[in-house]
């Protein structure tokens, strides 16, 4: 595997293998010395055109725990802001001979383009509203740790699906692992034709009591201004997941950061049914596994491959 651009780059066996390896890396994260020398001396560049604390620090830590050298470039204050094109930025970075480039961009297809312009392994940390494959992997990992398998699980993804790359990657990943998925949200925020991805779609929460897992998406305030929903109050009334709506056996997930009181009530966030903390923890181990999968077994351009 050369890059991780989309969840479609991985078949079920590939996902299982990465998650098995993530378990080993979870063990490493439990040690005092949370490092292994696997990627020692390799350079990993994090190119983040979108603000993000969660994902960027997770990738940074993953790279460092594999003993790699990390360069993090955030768009604020960089040459990017001064109008340097994505292509020129990637070409400048090639001077560091990076083994991998992790890219997050507000535009779909950015990771794919970067892969055309570099010999490094490219990891998509979120491209526009298209995909966020490592998030999907850590979501599957979290469920696997908790339930053993996703086979035959009934998973509901609730919220602003239209603008969610997490939803798109999760729909594909959950189904690949044997679960069935229903997306649910205000009709203005459910993409027309989303069923083509294999999931069901519902404009109301009716039937959610049948779900084993409820995956809640962040509801951004901007959507109110753009008239996708008339008001916060109406959204919360119709779609907020609180302990009142949650069955005792249902698990709750969220990609973070949570808008308390909007898509999730405070009591739901803090309940033992919520796996949000485990998701964050899983993030580093899963990203270590992805980096390992792409970079171990990948000689530098100048190295001859031994027999």
């Amino acid at each position: 595997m050369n890059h991780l651009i989309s969840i479609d780059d991985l078949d079920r066996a590939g996902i299982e293998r990465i998650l098995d390896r993530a378990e080993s890396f979870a063990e490493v994260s439990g040690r005092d010395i949370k490092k292994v020398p696997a990627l020692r001396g390799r350079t990993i560049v994090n190119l983040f055109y979108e603000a993000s604390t969660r994902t960027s620090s997770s990738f940074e830590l993953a790279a460092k725990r594999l003993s790699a050298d990390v360069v993090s470039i955030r768009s604020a204050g960089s040459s990017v802001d001064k109008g340097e094109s994505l292509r020129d930025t990637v070409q400048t970075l090639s001077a560091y001979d990076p083994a991998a480039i992790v890219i997050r961009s507000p535009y779909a297809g950015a990771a794919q383009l970067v892969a055309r312009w570099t010999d490094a392994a490219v990891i998509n940390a979120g491209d526009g509203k298209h995909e966020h494959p490592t998030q999907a992997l850590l979501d599957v990992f979290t469920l696997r740790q908790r339930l053993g398998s996703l086979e035959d699980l009934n998973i509901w993804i609730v919220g602003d699906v239209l603008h969610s790359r997490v939803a798109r990657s999760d729909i594909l990943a959950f189904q690949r692992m044997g679960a069935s998925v229903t997306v649910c949200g205000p009709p203005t925020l459910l993409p027309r034709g989303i069923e083509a991805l294999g999931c069901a779609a519902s404009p109301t929460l009716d039937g959610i009591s049948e779900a084993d897992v409820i995956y809640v998406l962040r509801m951004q305030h901007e959507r109110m201004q753009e008239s996708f929903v008339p008001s916060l109050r109406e959204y919360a009334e119709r779609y907020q997941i609180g302990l009142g709506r949650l069955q005792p056996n249902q698990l709750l997930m969220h990609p973070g950061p949570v808008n308390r009181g909007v898509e999730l009530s405070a009591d739901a966030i803090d309940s033992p049914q919520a796996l949000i903390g485990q998701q964050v923890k899983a993030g580093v181990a899963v990203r270590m596994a992805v980096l390992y999968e792409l970079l171990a077994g990948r000689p530098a351009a100048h190295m001859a491959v031994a027999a």
Partner: protein
Amino acid sequence: MSPNTVVLDRDGMRRTLVRIAHEIVEKNPPGEPGQIAIVGIQRRGAVLARRLHTLTSELIEPTVPLGFVDISFYRDDLRLRDPSNAAPVVHATQLDFPVDGRAIVIVDDVLYTGRTVRAAIDEIFDFGRPARVQLAVLVDRGHRELPIRPDYVGKNLPTAQDQRVNVRVEEIDGFEEVTIGPAAEPRRQAA
């Protein structure tokens, strides 16, 4: 193609391990700085370590701690091995006891270039500071590429580079046997 030659059968393996267990206990009298612990290298070294652990526990009190290390992340040849070809071993590294001040006995099935043992030592040192480290192997086939020497050897087996030593254990392969035969694939960086 010459067939594999059996150098140790089930009974031979058992007797060899019993002897090694006695040697370990003899060389590490109680009271010497550092109580011993046994650490097996995944995967077959771990199987043998478990057996040595049982055997040594019959000989001394208190029970010797048992641990395992998976050296995948410490190998020196990572760039040459495609991870998608190797299925990861889950829960592979388990060192649930404090390493500081211990006499660690590393256990592996075959000692060859010494690189695997080097990786295992590096990994163990990431967990703490042992008082000393010893090495027990079922077979020493020569061709060292690093200054690594075993403290306990089951059998010395001079081999050619184009040969392969196969250790089979019940827990993984379903039968017990050590054989020597032609190499199955082009030589890679080996143990």
